[in-house]
């Protein structure tokens, strides 16, 4: 029987104390060498292997000594990290002892004789003791043990037994493979989920974190288990993996030296020590640490990508027939890819189609397509406009940003292959960016993409999902989130700097003014809502009033709520608690109610700053006094709702106005028309204007009606010409003007007009049937009863509602009109004879409104 052990002659009785002293000296020497190498920044593969070999020698001597206790054939193996000779300064040593026969008292004595001296040397020893027969069937009850067997390295024992064991394992390998694969994937997923599935941790665990050393090992193991069976995993460079492993090993060695124990988290404090050791020079510690962490993230990313590739190759998804899904795009088993690589390489403007196709099917982009884009981007320095040369391309990028499942995963792929930074170069400034504070857990770019992931998750949130679905342009929320922290790359208040940096993107994508204002607003104020919700007394009405005054529209309030939720939720897994969600929700509801129910009493004060700004910028044709008289008695919200130019136009429209006259202005912006009517208020005015819009088949999307205390009415309607009246009739605008003039002046009765029309819009109803909500609020306003109405949207709805109100002899003073998907949400500030409604008035009006909304069509 051949004996593999090295060291003293078999059976020689060596004094235990002398042996311990010798081992201690040898171990101290090996550890010193490892510490010295680590301090030189060389605590990688070679240094760790030397350390392991020293321990190997000690164990061989101990096995030789302990061998006297039993005649049973035996073998001792190094397993786990020690098996791979990655023996860090304070790592455990894991051993497997296998006996060729049954385990009895002599074998137990052997194990004790081996382990006790190791414990005396202060090793943390993990050990498994098995009989050879145990290896005929895999032990599936212990996945960690199963995986540890993959790194068996014989240290000492009977050669015959080692060979037999090797033979047994090879023979049963086909049976073991699926179990090991399952165990590896399950444990890897569990481990990653503990880190929120992201490698971009500001204080990463260099052993267990995603992209860290355990993933290097998992990648290699997957390759051995068959991940490479399809003839090579494309793009998984062994050299790159080896280099990344060396870097991670050097860092981890440093952590053990600095902490004096088995510590694997590269904390802020230890990062500062690591930069000295790994020669990251420069006067500014922050920059040095950032350089270290950037390298760390790059290497961890390489590891993660390699692991992903071999994992997908080892466990391929169900076979998918290869399908052409568009120009030069194919859906293959690995995901969406280019049909013709050369053609794709020459057409960077079409690369977004790949990601569009991928997100619309919620399938990943295939590795070869990502590798092609990455290669091409490294070869060429493309200007951002190359990726969106036409309006169609720009529109496609915008549409791509609409929140859907899989969007953030696709954005991550774009970030990793370099396309995201090529289209939005401002984002390159936060790539791997480290910000140090008590609460952020991820790099700035990763925090940003996690925030986008949170938008997707909000889609299914019972409280916030409906709000997200009401947003007309949710792609602006995603764009604002992508840019909300870009300012952290530069000096100054990052909210302001970020808003300025976003201007470049807005200009390149040629977004319209409304979109520009929305993105600018969201970035500039992205910290405001959380600060107020978490730090101010939101039960104080003035706090809510001031907060609500930030917003020109309810849409902006909703966007800021969603942005805040997604931003806070991306700080760390524990930051957005249900407690904080509740505070944000309450502030949102209070501000929403203030904006829709409580704004009527807040009248413009001629001394306020907004009025001063209007006066200061006033065109020459508008005298100061005219401006002041026009604003007198209008709600303060008017100043926030409208731009300076719009207000000056309203002033001009109000000139020389007489009873029964309407001065109006109609303009078209893309698919939305805007009608502004200035007139002196009178009963049925609002209803009549709505009637005219209904007569022409216009779909009112949103609008405002405001009446000053002096009786001047400013009504603004945005509507869609769904029946194409203006497009079909060259004289359509003239006819529209004439009808509106006739109805407002009283020359034509709008009800007769509507009845005269065949296929009247009044006979058309929405297909959706929800129970309408008719609610009266008397708390928010001292002056008005506020009627809030939520109902299925339908053509002519606003006309019918306002008609019922006017038929009750009730005055409509202020109106907010909004449409959210299939829902109409209208808020009327109403009075009767200048006073709030009585309870009887409310009951009677409610009954008639509900009857009209739920009853049969006229």
């Amino acid at each position, binding site marked *: 029987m051949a004996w593999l052990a090295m060291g003293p002659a078999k059976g020689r009785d060596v004094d235990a104390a002398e042996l311990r002293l010798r081992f201690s000296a040898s171990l101290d020497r090996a550890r010193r060498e490892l510490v010295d190498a680590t301090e030189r920044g060389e605590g990688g593969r070679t240094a760790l292997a030397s350390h392991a070999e020293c321990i190997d020698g000690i164990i061989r001597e101990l096995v030789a000594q302990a061998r006297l206790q039993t005649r049973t054939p035996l073998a001792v193996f190094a397993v786990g990290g020690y098996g791979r000779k990655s023996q860090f300064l304070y790592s455990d040593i894991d051993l497997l002892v296998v006996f060729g026969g049954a385990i009895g008292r002599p074998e137990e004595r052997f194990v004790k004789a081996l382990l006790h001296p190791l414990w005396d040397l202060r090793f943390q020893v993990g050990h498994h003791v098995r009989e050879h027969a145990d290896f005929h069937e895999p032990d599936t009850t212990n996945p960690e043990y199963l995986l540890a067997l993959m790194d068996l390295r014989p240290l000492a024992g009977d050669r015959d037994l080692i060979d037999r064991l090797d033979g047994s394992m090879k023979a049963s390998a086909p049976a073991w493979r699926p179990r090991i694969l399952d165990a590896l994937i399950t444990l890897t997923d569990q481990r990653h989920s503990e880190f929120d599935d992201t490698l971009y941790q500001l204080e990463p665990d260099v052993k267990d974190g995603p992209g860290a050393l355990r993933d290097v090992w998992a990648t290699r193991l997957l390759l051995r288990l068959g991940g490479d069976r399809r003839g090579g995993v494309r793009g998984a460079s062994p050299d790159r993996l080896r280099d990344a492993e060396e870097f991670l090993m050097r860092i981890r060695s440093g952590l053990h030296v600095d902490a004096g124990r088995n510590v694997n988290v590269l904390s802020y404090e230890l990062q500062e020590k690591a930069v000295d050791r790994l020669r990251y020079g420069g006067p500014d510690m922050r920059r040095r640490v950032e350089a270290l962490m950037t390298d760390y993230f790059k290497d961890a990313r390489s590891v993660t990508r390699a692991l992903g590739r071999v994992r997908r190759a080892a466990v391929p998804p169900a076979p998918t027939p290869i399908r052409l899904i568009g120009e030069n795009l194919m859906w293959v088993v690995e995901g969406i890819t280019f049909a013709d690589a050369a053609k794709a390489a020459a057409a960077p403007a079409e690369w977004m189609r790949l990601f569009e196709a991928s997100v619309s099917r919620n399938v990943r982009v295939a590795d070869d397509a990502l590798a092609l884009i990455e290669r091409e981007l490294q070869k060429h320095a493309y200007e951002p406009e190359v990726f969106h040369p036409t309006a169609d391309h720009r529109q496609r990028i915008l549409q791509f940003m609409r929140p859907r499942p899989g969007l953030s995963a696709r954005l991550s792929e774009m970030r990793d292959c370099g396309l995201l930074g090529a289209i939005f170069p401002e984002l390159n400034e936060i790539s791997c960016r480290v910000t140090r504070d008590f609460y952020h857990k991820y790099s700035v770019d990763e925090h940003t993409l996690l925030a986008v992931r949170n938008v997707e998750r909000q889609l299914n949130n019972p409280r916030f999902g409906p709000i997200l679905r009401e947003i007309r342009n949710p792609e602006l929320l995603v764009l604002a989130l992508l840019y909300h922290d870009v300012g952290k790359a530069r000096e100054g208040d990052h909210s302001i700097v970020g808003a300025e940096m976003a201007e470049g993107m807005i200009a390149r994508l040629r977004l319209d003014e409304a979109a520009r204002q929305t993105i600018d607003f969201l970035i500039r104020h992205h910290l405001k809502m959380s600060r107020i919700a*978490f*730090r*101010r*007394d*939101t*039960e104080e009405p003035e706090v809510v009033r001031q907060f609500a005054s930030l917003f020109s529209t309810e849409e902006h309030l909703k966007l800021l709520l969603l942005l805040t939720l997604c931003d806070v939720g991306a700080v760390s897994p524990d930051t957005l*608690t249900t*407690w*904080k969600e*509740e*505070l944000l929700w*309450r502030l949102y*509801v*209070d501000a*929403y*109610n203030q904006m829709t129910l409580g704004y009527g009493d807040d009248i413009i004060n001629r001394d306020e700053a907004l009025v001063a700004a209007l006066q200061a910028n006033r065109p020459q044709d508008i005298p100061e006094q005219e401006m002041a008289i026009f604003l007198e008695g209008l709600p303060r919200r008017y100043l926030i709702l409208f731009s300076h130019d719009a207000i000056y136009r309203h002033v001009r429209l109000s000139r020389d106005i007489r009873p029964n006259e309407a001065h109006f202005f109609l303009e078209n912006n893309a698919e939305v028309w805007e009608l502004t009517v200035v007139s002196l208020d009178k009963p049925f005015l609002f209803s009549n204007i709505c009637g005219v819009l209904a007569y022409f088949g216009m779909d009112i999307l949103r609008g405002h009606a405001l009446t000053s205390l002096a009786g001047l009415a400013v009504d603004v309607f945005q509507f869609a010409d769904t029946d194409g009246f203006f497009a079909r009739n060259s004289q359509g605008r003239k006819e529209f003007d004439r009808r509106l003039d006739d109805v407002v002046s009283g020359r034509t009765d709008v009800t007769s007009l509507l009845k005269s029309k065949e296929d009247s819009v009044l006979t058309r109803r929405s297909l959706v049937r929800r129970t309408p*909500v*008719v*609610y009266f*609020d008397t708390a928010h306003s001292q002056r008005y009863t506020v009627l*809030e*109405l*939520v109902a299925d949207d339908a053509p002519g709805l606003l006309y019918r509602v306002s008609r019922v109100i006017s038929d009750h002899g009730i005055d409509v003073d202020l109106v907010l009109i909004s449409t959210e998907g299939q829902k109409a*949400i209208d808020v009327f500030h109403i009075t009767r004879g200048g006073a709030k409604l009585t309870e009887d008035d409310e009951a009677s009006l409610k009954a008639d409104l509900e009857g009209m909304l739920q009853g049969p069509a006229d």
Partner: protein
Amino acid sequence: MKLIKSIVRPNMVDNIKEALGKLNIAGMTVTEVRGHGRQKGHTAVYRGREYEVSLLPKMEIEVVVPDTAVDEAIKAIIGAARTGEIGDGRVFVMPVEQGYNIRTGEKDV
């Protein structure tokens, strides 16, 4: 030693921290909690539909102080957390038998 447990409005934590800091009471534990006292929550309306806010968000602050500092600490907390409105919160005082520093193993005096 006494454990002072205060349930306060969320926005009052910084005020209390500052007030206790002036008394050289530095260590504290702050927890997000929800509950109700006499305030018993309220009903809010969003788009015409009512929803119950039965448990209100509050902050719980725990500090351990020597017996001699208890009265001053309570006074500081009340002074910093009070608005005069319902919902300002509560302060409870409990005896602490022993305290230890985990790092050093030393017993608190």
